[in-house]
């Protein structure tokens, strides 16, 4: 057999590798050495075999060298070995932990299901809320300058308090930009509603805004087509969103095309802007050039840049630095005084853009905003639900501890250390909670459409399945598992082996544990009772808002909006005559606004006030037959006479609140000279009616006739023949004013949209209350099953000694009943105070009273007793012979 050098070296290497005395890199070095030696000897004519033998000898005695190597590497070498062993051992232990954990989960499927499901539902809840909160939080933050943009708001203070407006006078924008160094740029918007037409494509646009060209500098609105520097500079130009561009031009290129407003005014499309994200408080469809408005404004009111009245502009400013807001704001009072004189009641503030969605509820907001407190409340509830599910987890796991006492005893007797056992049980908890986390993500995906409907959001699957989000789910799962597993793990591991195996470890390990478990259960009940009571109160309040008489006939009124189009006003008489000919139509009237959509406020003067003074008041511009159609009751004086339509705006009707504010009686006010644009007598006083949602206090109102301000047609119809009536209405409209798009809404439905936020609050509360209850019941059920099982023997003995089934049920349930009572006592004051604060925000509110609490308490008690009672009944009815043979 011939000598093979490679094989010989490999064998040598293998030998040393097995011994594990040398690190691989040192073996490499030695191998090199051997090879060098062999190569040299072979070079002078020695055979490979002989050279190898020689080389080995020359290397010297490795048996002696190894200690040397070790001395050099002492710690390193040894430590590396140890570390390797530890890691290997760790992995195999982890595998072992997981295997045992998995088997344990499978061995008690009921327990696993209850525990896992409870946790999954809790986590799903939490995750949904996290999505919701994040969505609310990111409103308006997509603008690059979000932290530097402020909205200019106006505030008027008089003896009745402060009235705050989201809109401001037109002069403020340019003035602030010129005179305040901290402000780099401003942009003014004027909201507008009008029909736009491209050939056959005709739509009522209520998302129109006149905007200055600086809009593209202040806000981040990337143009898909067109040039931001020039797009809105010329008069009669406009920029469309992508959606609007498709609406008017389909697939065709919109740039340079023309759109016609109200069939009179031509606009050229100079740009298409990316659709702004849904999370913006300023949502527009079309931006019109401000120059267009400037010309029209100049014709009627003068220079728009120096006009200090008519506060109908939304003005935003870009600060040089976010921190300069206070400094800029401090200069405003002096500036206002300089322009408006000392006795102006106007104050101007700078509101951060990022505060608008969650922290702003001024008058004339651009749309309904969210509410920070609602977000906090929801987030709080979600956390509480997560907490409940964790508590359940702790309870159930601790409760099961005793069942596993023997396992622990055996493990300890076989040499398991306390730390290992802790890890084992912690591992089980974490495994279950991570499984629950996976289940929670699936639940979230399934529940998302429902949750979107509930919260009026468009949260997407894609945002759920993002890396960071899934990572945070995992984090929550891990955290919940650790949290929920830590206590039971430590408790279980602390059992003493000998006692457990002898059976002398007490079934209930320590009174402290029992107290803790009972405390947690009571806390859970407190949460359930609290959330449920709060829900009932919220439901009551929303019902109250919806059912309280508004003071006018809101039912069976169909409203056709035409947004102040002059052509409709011109043909109003024809329209009314034709509509009144339809038998199922009772009344037809026109008005500037309708209840629930009140936007007009004016300043007035009445005899008795100093001549140069004026005060603000809500104004409703009406047709003479408005009061009749809306079923308003006159308290004094009379309604507008039909023939009064001739002397427009020269007679006035006040509501009771206005008269009261003037310090007069209804009788006194009749005939007094009143001025608002033009002057004339007060002819009547109408009974108060709620022209705004009941969150708001009823305010003073003046009504006058001024047809050019009409914007809505209200039609009172016979409910019985609604479909045919609606058809007749549409046909009449289309023949009389074909150029204006036909649209309609029911007054009561439209009015109730003001309660959307409250309804949502109620619904979210209700859903979460049910979830909390579900999780609590689940946990309770598991706990009850465990208790009954644990006391099987005791029950058997009691039965043999003559206890009745009902006695046993009572024995087992009274415990739980006590806890419900404790929870109830804790929950009542907290919820009462919290809900009082919520209700205080409403002008018209219910009194919380005791009913919601009794209801919530009763329901929780019933459920708890049912869950425990069923289990104990099963135990109580069981054959004692069998239960005594148990174990």
């Amino acid at each position, binding site marked *: 057999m011939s000598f093979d050098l490679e094989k010989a070296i490999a064998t040598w290497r293998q030998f040393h590798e097995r011994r594990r005395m040398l690190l691989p890199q*040192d073996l490499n*070095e030695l191998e090199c*050495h051997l090879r*060098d030696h062999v190569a040299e000897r072979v070079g002078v004519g020695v055979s490979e075999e002989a050279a190898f033998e020689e080389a080995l000898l*020359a290397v010297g005695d490795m048996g002696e*060298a190894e200690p*040397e*190597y070790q001395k050099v590497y002492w710690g390193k070498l040894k430590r590396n070995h140890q570390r390797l062993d530890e890691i290997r051992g760790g992995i195999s232990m982890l595998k072992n932990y997981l295997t045992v954990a998995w088997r344990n989960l499978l061995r008690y499927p009921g327990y696993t299901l209850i525990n896992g499901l409870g946790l999954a539902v809790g986590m799903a809840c939490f995750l949904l809320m996290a999505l919701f909160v994040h969505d609310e939080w990111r409103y308006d933050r997509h603008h690059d300058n979000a932290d530097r943009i402020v909205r200019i708001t106006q505030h008027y203070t008089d003896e009745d308090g402060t009235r705050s407006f989201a809109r401001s006078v037109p002069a403020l924008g340019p003035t602030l930009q010129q005179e305040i160094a901290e402000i780099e740029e401003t942009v003014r918007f004027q909201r507008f509603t009008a029909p736009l037409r491209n050939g056959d494509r005709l739509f009522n646009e209520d998302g129109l805004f006149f905007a200055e060209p600086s809009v593209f500098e202040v806000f981040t609105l990337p143009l898909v087509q067109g040039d931001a520097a020039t797009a809105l500079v010329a008069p009669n130009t406009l920029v469309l969103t992508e959606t609007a561009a498709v609406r008017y031009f389909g697939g065709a290129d919109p740039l340079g095309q023309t759109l016609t407003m109200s069939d009179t005014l031509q606009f050229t499309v100079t740009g298409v802007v990316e659709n702004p994200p849904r999370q913006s408080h300023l949502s527009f469809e079309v931006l019109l050039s401000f120059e267009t408005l400037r010309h029209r404004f100049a014709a009627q009111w003068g220079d728009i840049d120096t006009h200090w009245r008519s506060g109908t502009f939304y003005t935003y400013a870009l600060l040089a630095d976010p921190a300069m807001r206070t400094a800029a704001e401090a200069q405003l009072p002096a500036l206002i005084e300089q322009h408006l004189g000392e006795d102006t009641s106007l104050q101007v503030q700078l509101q951060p853009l990022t505060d608008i969605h969650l922290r702003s509820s001024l008058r004339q907001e651009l749309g309904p905003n969210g509410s920070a407190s609602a977000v906090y409340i929801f987030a709080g509830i979600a956390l509480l639900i997560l907490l409940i599910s964790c508590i359940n987890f702790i309870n159930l796991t601790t409760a099961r501890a005793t069942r596993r006492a023997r396992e622990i005893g055996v493990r300890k007797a076989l040499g398991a250390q306390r730390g290992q056992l802790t890890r084992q049980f912690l591992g089980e908890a974490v495994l279950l909670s991570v499984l629950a986390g996976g289940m929670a993500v699936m639940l979230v995906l399934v529940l998302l459409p429902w949750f979107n409907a509930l919260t009026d959001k468009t949260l997407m699957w894609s945002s759920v399945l993002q890396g960071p989000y899934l990572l945070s789910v995992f984090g929550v799962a891990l955290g919940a598992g650790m949290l929920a597993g830590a206590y039971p793990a430590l408790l279980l591991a602390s059992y003493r082996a000998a006692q457990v195996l002898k059976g002398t470890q007490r079934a209930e390990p320590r009174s402290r544990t029992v107290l803790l478990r009972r405390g947690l259960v009571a806390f859970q009940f407190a949460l359930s009772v609290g959330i449920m009571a709060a829900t009932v109160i919220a439901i009551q309040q929303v019902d109250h808002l919806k059912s309280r008489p508004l003071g006018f006939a809101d039912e069976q009124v169909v409203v056709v909006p035409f947004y102040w189009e002059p052509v409709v006003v011109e043909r109003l008489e024809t329209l009314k005559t034709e509509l009144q000919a339809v038998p199922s139509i009772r009344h037809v009237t026109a008005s500037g606004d309708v209840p629930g959509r009140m936007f007009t406020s004016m300043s007035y003067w009445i005899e008795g006030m100093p001549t140069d003074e004026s005060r603000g008041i809500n104004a409703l511009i009406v047709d003479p037959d408005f009061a009749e159609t809306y079923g308003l009751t006159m308290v004094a004086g009379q309604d507008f006479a039909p023939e009064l339509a001739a002397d427009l705006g020269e007679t006035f009707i006040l509501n009771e609140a206005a008269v009261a504010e003037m310090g007069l009686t209804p009788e006194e006010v009749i005939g007094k000279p009143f001025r608002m644009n033009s002057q004339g007598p007060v002819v009547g006083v109408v009974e108060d009616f709620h022209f705004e949602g009941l969150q708001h206090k009823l305010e003073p109102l003046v009504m006058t006739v001024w047809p050019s301000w009409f914007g809505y047609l209200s039609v009172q119809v016979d409910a019985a023949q609604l479909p045919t009536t609606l058809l007749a209405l549409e046909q009449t409209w289309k023949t009389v004013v074909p150029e204006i798009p036909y649209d309609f809404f029911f007054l009561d439905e439209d009015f109730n949209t003001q309660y959307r936020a409250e309804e949502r609050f109620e619904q979210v509360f209700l859903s979460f209350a049910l979830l909390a209850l579900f999780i609590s019941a689940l946990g309770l059920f598991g706990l009850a099953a465990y208790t009954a099982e644990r006391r099987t023997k005791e029950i058997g003995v009691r039965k043999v000694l003559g206890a009745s089934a009902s006695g046993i049920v009572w024995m087992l349930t009274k415990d739980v009943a006590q806890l419900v009572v404790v929870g109830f006592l804790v929950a009542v004051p907290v919820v009462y105070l919290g809900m009082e604060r919520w209700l205080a925000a409403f002008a018209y509110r219910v009194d919380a009273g005791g009913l919601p609490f009794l209801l919530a308490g009763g329901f929780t008690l019933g459920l708890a007793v049912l869950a425990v009672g069923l289990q104990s009944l099963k135990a109580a009815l069981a054959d004692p012979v069998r239960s005594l043979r148990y174990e």
Partner: protein
Amino acid sequence: MLPKELVAASLRPIMLTLLEERAMYGYQIIQRVHDLSDGQIKWTASKLYPLLHDLENKGLVEAFWQPSEAGPDRKYYRLTRVGREALAREKRSWLDLNAILVRLWGPELGLQTA
């Protein structure tokens, strides 16, 4: 053949000196010493490498790996700055010792005292 103790004692200074000249790998060092001493000093790998590693740990020499013609990468050693300083001290001690010996034995062997 020189006595074992002396060989062991001279290992360190000789090695440092060799590595000061240029970077070398273990086998080269052994060969070089063998040649230098006309076969009087024979280091074995099992003595050399632990010492090299020790010097490396102490920062007197540094090592780097280079590919070799056959087998695994070769490990080269060279002196570091710390190593040079150590060598300078080493030289002084050995020369001092040498001076003592020369003073003692010089006359009898016909050597001049330094």
